């Protein structure tokens, strides 16, 4: 099993969800996060004063998958998150090994619990 963490631009979330739904991946966790990478930051204007905002809004998507789903899920996230342009700040996908999963209601473990 693998644990996928993807950081994407907030405006691409709907597109990523559409791509995942095509694969019938119906389990995911989404959170609003902030961070920066090569992009560094952007300017915001409050009362005629420019503020450098070096923490950028991102959306973090977390999905646990069985190994044979990994490649197609990565492709789906990639397609949705990149859109037509894929400019700087489009995000990253991290893949982690996943040791075990436990479904709290039934105590099932492993792939059955996904």
């Amino acid at each position, binding site marked *: 099993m693998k644990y996928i963490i993807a950081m994407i631009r907030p405006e691409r979330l709907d597109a990523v969800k559409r791509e995942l739904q095509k694969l019938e991946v119906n389990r995911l966790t989404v959170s609003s996060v902030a961070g920066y990478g090569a992009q560094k930051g952007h300017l915001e204007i409050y009362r*005629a004063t420019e503020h450098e*905002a070096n923490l950028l809004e991102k959306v973090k998507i977390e999905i646990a998958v069985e190994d044979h789903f990994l490649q197609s899920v990565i492709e789906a996230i990639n397609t949705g998150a990149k859109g037509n342009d894929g400019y700087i700040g489009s995000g990253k996908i991290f893949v982690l090994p996943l040791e075990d999963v436990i479904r709290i209601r039934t105590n099932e473990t492993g792939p059955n619990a996904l």
Partner: protein
Amino acid sequence: MAIEGADTVWVLISAALVLLMLPGLALFYGGLVQRKNVLSSMMHSFVAMGVMALEWVLIGYSLAFADGNWFVGGLGHAFLRGIDAYSVTGTIPTYAFIAFQGMFAIITPALISGAIVGRVKFKSYIAFIALWGLIVYAPVCHWVWGGGFLTGEALDFAGGTVVHITSGVSSLAILTYIGKRRGFGVDPLKPHNVTLTLLGGGLLWFGWFGFNAGSALAANEIAALAFITTLIAPAAAGFVWMALEWRHFGYPTALGFATGVLAGLVAITPCAGFVTPMAAIPIGMITSFVCYKAVGLKERFGYDDSLDAFGVHGVGGIVGALLVGVFASVGGTGLLLGNTSQMLIQLQGVVITIVYAAVGTLLIGFILNRTIGLKVTESEENIGLDKTQHGEIAYNV
């Protein structure tokens, strides 16, 4: 004079409208601070309703409006002595007049809180506004409206000098004394919720109709004039601020428009019942431009007027108090009608008020700092005042 029912109704409703400006101010300021200080900032406005309303009826009203000398009223009406339900001021019950004026005494010190958010002990803030109400507000109110040396001389319809110059200049004075927020000029210290600020700005404008049109103290043609100028000047000012930002930064920001509206409201306050609606347009536009430039000064000089209490209320109040000397044409004449002496009187009132408010505020700040202390500790400031001063936080998971 006999009591007029319509006048009484209008002044009572206006008084209630002005009180609604306090939650409006709480939202306006609350949205502009960091999320760890939102309750503390809103409490600055709310607690003024408790502290200042009491102080006003106990002693403030008397110091402002009882018979006294050129400088301050007497104690003849302390604890509202000598006033009962049948007392009359003009054409309204004296209780209505006291309540209406009391609303001004409540909101004026609360305006100062915008300059000192995020770094002042709550008990020191309460002591500050209470002392400020007695030492700065009541005398200046007496000068302009209560029979003091500017009464009948300087034009100040609804408090450009009494409310906005005093609070704005005091903001600058106290913030230079207590210093910056930690992280000012280094960390972003951005507004945590501009939507609250917009809603608060709208409530302020709504309440301001009572503030200005209520100051006619009658349901008459001057109230209607003050009402329409209170509609026009902020509209022109909001538009100008938005246009300036659009040109300089490429965006017409929401906070910019709201700030322009506020500057226009401040400027029209002294002018409201003395100028025509067509004069309200340049008054709003000029003030917006000047305040826009003034807000930028804190970047240049490095002082932390956190929510621009001086940049908007102080500067806007000064510009408005001078412009009424230019544009006055109803119940007084200004420069445009050839009356240069009015301009000099306005200037005199402005300068005296600036000096008095600054000195009085520094004195209060000095006394409080030497006794109960003004600022919170470094760690309290880092944690935020909501948790350290009030034991609660605005947003739970």
